[in-house]
């Protein structure tokens, strides 16, 4: 899912932002400008750290009766694609009377990128964060409303048991630009602890590269 415009111009680095990204960056929608009042929102969620370059915080207001998202506000520390993708996500889940929780949880980074008319390949990891912040907020909502059984647990699978590397780790390394086993090792700042895991790790690298950049 690479910016199509760039594909046409043959820009090998795919670096330029689409007009849609610029629009949402320069006039972001659903910003949380003032601190919220007590009880104004049903739950909040935050992911990322300033150390890794992006932090996102999301507040949601859920209609208890039909589980539609009445309001979603956000704050983001990050680059243009981080800001634009959160803004676009906030529009997607609140438009047309608000999405149902279960549908909003199905939104994938690719869906957001599609609405943004693509993102530079190297920036893909940014947009992955807002769906994660949202899931965090929804989990908090489930907690707040005592629906513990509905809390979503990350289905990460350990591929390298010696170093506890999961498929999610490899996915985020690929989203961060890793293309080879060596790149992934550099990104995760580890070697491979279990040599027998290498074929599976390499397969995952190919899989995620095709999924996001193929």
């Amino acid at each position: 899912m690479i910016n199509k415009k760039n594909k046409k111009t043959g820009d090998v680095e795919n670096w330029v932002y689409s007009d849609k990204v610029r629009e949402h960056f320069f006039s972001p929608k659903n910003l949380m400008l003032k601190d919220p009042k007590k009880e104004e929102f049903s739950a909040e969620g935050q992911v990322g750290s300033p150390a890794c370059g992006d932090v996102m915080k999301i507040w949601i207001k859920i209609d208890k009766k039909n589980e539609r998202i009445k309001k979603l506000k956000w704050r983001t520390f990050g680059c243009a694609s981080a800001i634009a993708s959160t803004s676009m996500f906030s529009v997607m889940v609140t438009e047309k009377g608000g999405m149902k929780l279960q549908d909003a949880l199905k939104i994938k980074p690719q869906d957001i990128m599609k609405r943004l008319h693509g993102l530079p390949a190297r920036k893909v990891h940014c947009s992955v964060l807002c769906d994660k912040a949202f899931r965090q907020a929804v989990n908090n909502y489930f907690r707040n409303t005592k629906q513990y059984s509905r809390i979503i647990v990350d289905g990460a699978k350990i591929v390298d048991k010696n170093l506890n590397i999961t498929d999610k780790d490899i996915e985020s390394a690929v989203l961060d630009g890793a293309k080879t086993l060596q790149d992934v090792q550099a990104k995760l700042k580890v070697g491979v602890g279990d040599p027998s895991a290498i074929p599976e790790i390499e397969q995952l690298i190919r899989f995620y590269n095709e999924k996001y950049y193929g």
Partner: protein
Amino acid sequence: MKQIYLDYASTTLIDKTVAKAMTVCQAKIYGNPGSLHQVGQLAKKEILKARTKIAKILNCKPEEIIFTGSGTESDNLAILGVMRTNRLSPACRQAGMITTDIEHHAILNPAEQLGKEGYKILKIGVNKDGFVDLEELKKNISSETVLVSIIYANNEIGTIQPIKEIAKMIKEKNPKTLFHTDACQATGYLDLNVQNLGVDLMTINAGKIYGPKGVGLLYVKAGTKIEPIIFGGGQERGLRSGTENVAGIIGLATALELVQKNHKKESLREIKLRDYFIKQILQKIPKTVLNGSLENRLPNNINISFLDVEGEAMLLWLDKYGICVSTGSACDSLNLDPSHVILALGKPYEYANGALRFTLGRSTTKKDLDYVLKVLPKIVADLRKISPVRVKI
């Protein structure tokens, strides 16, 4: 909209005199300097003229100058070319190179490559002001140290290393150790006399001194053991094969001559502007920190961290107002890692992610800077409003 270009450290505009010299050359000198006929020999003569001009400025012999395709290529040639001459010696595994944590990637990445080839690479740190730890350097130079490479003036934070002092120290410890410096950012402002500096190799490129892009040079002291990284027709004493970029070389020589002639006066002018701008930013915008020492800093470099805000977001807003700057941040262009230079100062990631670099040049005026000072505080304030981060200073 008027563009306010504050990114001279990335590249400069081209000087009119340089552009003219190149146009004239391109129209008239079309021969291959390697050809024996008159048309070719005319081109050869032009290159010799340029080489002699440059040699005068660097205070070296003309044959000690190797023209290349960029500063990056010169850096690669210097360190790969010198280190790899040890490939076949029995002591190969011991052969070592020392460099620093704040080098340009044109040094760091080939050094990493050398590491993969089995050479010993050591990177030494800098202090919080951005100066190389001379004691640590001294301690680590041994009889096996083949090469030391240290950036003359840093490209991100502009700190100037005491090259002359370092050269003296290296030679005292081991006279056989070679010393290379990347002078790409220093060229327009500092002393380039290689005898004075005591360096064995020095990188310069034209694109930072109002010359053309895609031309650089490597000064290689006579007698230095070095091998090529590009092979072919044997141009440039066999060290850089490929037909010479005649117009580019003439552009480089002209630009270097001009920039050296005017640099004292221009430096003083830019220092005034730089200090004014730094003072105003730190005063007007809360939670801002200057990266790198104010003393011994390039006249044109300003690098400031704006906490709680991400560099690229500020860059794009400034761009909307016609102001061109660059970031030292995670989302900086092609490399998504936070600036290794700001991290090397011992500052946390948050500082690296919120850093902006403003670099001044010949056409920068106080009026330009006042315009930036008018729009930037609001941009930072607005981005802080939407940021969930509150870093404590």
